[in-house]
């Protein structure tokens, strides 16, 4: 196993850190400063992103900041592992929340996830809605495209 593969598999986001856990943490945070400090901290938990992967093919378009996304499909478990990077701190935090929700799932799970329901859940974090060029929708779109290439027999459902 290469170290690059380990970076994918050892990512706590979406494996040991779960969306329910993050939601629970959020409930204790009252004001915007605490919430954003928490989001920024989550962004700091993103695993190191390989420099050589910052290329056009991995670039996520539609964000105000620069965002890159790569994946590793683990044949053994049939799960898709993701890494995201951005030069904006809040976008890194949002990317971490997306990974918490979608990392380490099977492509079929990803394609059947109700994205609007996910965004509604994220909206409970208050002010984290897929708008204003923060790239939430672009990142999720790219993940679903990747998932679709892993199950070529079925076209992705359009949401």
């Amino acid at each position, binding site marked *: 196993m290469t170290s690059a593969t380990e970076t994918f598999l050892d990512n706590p986001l979406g494996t040991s850190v779960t969306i329910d856990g993050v939601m629970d943490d959020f409930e204790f945070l009252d004001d*915007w*400063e605490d919430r*954003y*400090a928490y989001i*920024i901290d989550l962004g700091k938990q993103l695993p190191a992103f390989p420099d050589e992967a910052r290329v056009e093919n991995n670039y996520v378009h539609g964000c*105000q*900041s*620069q965002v890159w996304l790569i994946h590793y499909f683990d044949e053994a478990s049939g799960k898709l592992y993701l890494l995201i990077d951005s*030069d*904006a*701190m*809040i*976008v890194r935090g949002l990317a971490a929340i997306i990974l918490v929700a979608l990392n380490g799932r099977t492509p079929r799970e990803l394609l059947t996830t109700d994205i609007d329901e996910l965004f509604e859940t994220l909206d409970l974090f208050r*002010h984290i809605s897929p708008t*204003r*060029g*923060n790239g939430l929708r672009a990142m999720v779109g790219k993940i679903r495209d990747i998932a679709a290439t892993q199950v070529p027999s079925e076209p992705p459902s359009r949401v």
Partner: protein
Amino acid sequence: MTDLSVAKTVTRQGLDVEAVRRDFPILTQCINNKPLVYLDNGASAQKPIAVLDAMDRYYREMHSNVHRGAHTLGDRATAAFEGARETVRGFLNAASTREIIWTRGTTEAINLVANGLAGKLQPDDEILVSRMEHHANIVPWQMLAERTGAKVVPVQVTHEGELDLDSFDQLLNDKTRILALTHVSNVLGTVNPIKSLVAKAKARGVFTVVDGAQAVPHFQPDVQAIDCDFYTFSAHKLFGPTGIGVLYGREALLEAMPPYQGGGEMIERVSFEKTTWNTLPYKFEAGTPAIAEAVGLGAAIDYLGTLDRVAMEAAEQALLARANALVATVPGMEVIGTARHKVPVMSFKIAGLHPSDIGTLLDQQGIAIRTGHHCAMPLMEFFGVPGTARASFAFYNTLDEVEQLFTALQKIQRLFA
């Protein structure tokens, strides 16, 4: 003259900013539970009640199509519409309303000129722009260059964000056919010495096009004094409605230019043998125009006419001076664009923070600014930044709001520290 008509033209002496703010209903609201601090005027300015009322009244009392003449409403609409054109003429000090063309905005106005000058260009001719132009004053010229084989050549800027005048003098040459320059930079706030640059270009027989979109919200240009061939602006940045803008063009040049779009209104006579064009300005106004928006723009200019212009400019400079004085209170903050002559616009970066981080967290505190490349990617490249955060002030902003901005920036800086 009656007292009433005198009262109507009296200028408010000085600038009572609290009184002025009451003229802008949108400003009195909360965003994210904080009083709105609107510092994104460079993107679009807010509208006074006078504009809202004029447009409302137009639709309630006089709407009909213009220039048809068969009934009273049509006459009223035409009078209001052409009255607005006269108001714009006066605002720019153009010689005639034949020189005032309605467009959808600055972008369309520049595209109209680029299209109209196509016949004047030959391969290897040069179109001189600058590195601080908005994309709207770059891309139409690139498209024109593509069509004609001409070249778009950028004048460089200095690290202070001023136009590099040596670069200008070197690049203006016998091949230059068009000079297209912004009066004020949307990113930097720099006021360019447009009159002397236009004079140098005209001495060589170069067509001169001035993008005034960011100038008119801050001061009143005089197109005859500037002596440019074309001057453009958008109503929505001048406290008027969206969807309408102005192209001023020298009458002889407009006469010589082909129409931009074909259709109703712009023709004199249509037949399958030969169609002839309407007179100026209608030759360039195909289709039913934005009538209510023209009326709204006229009302915006009339509103500005009631204010003390000198006091207004002084108040704006006071806002900029206060902002400049507070920069040092935010660790890692750096202003991009420190020209000597600026309108109250402040582009900045904060070490370690992406502009989008700054914008998101200011919004949480009720403060609206713009972040990103500001449709000026060549300028971002020059300064080596992916984008900037930009606070752009208007005369209705207060010194207290400037201070709120910096208190908010200090808070954000601590959040990331």
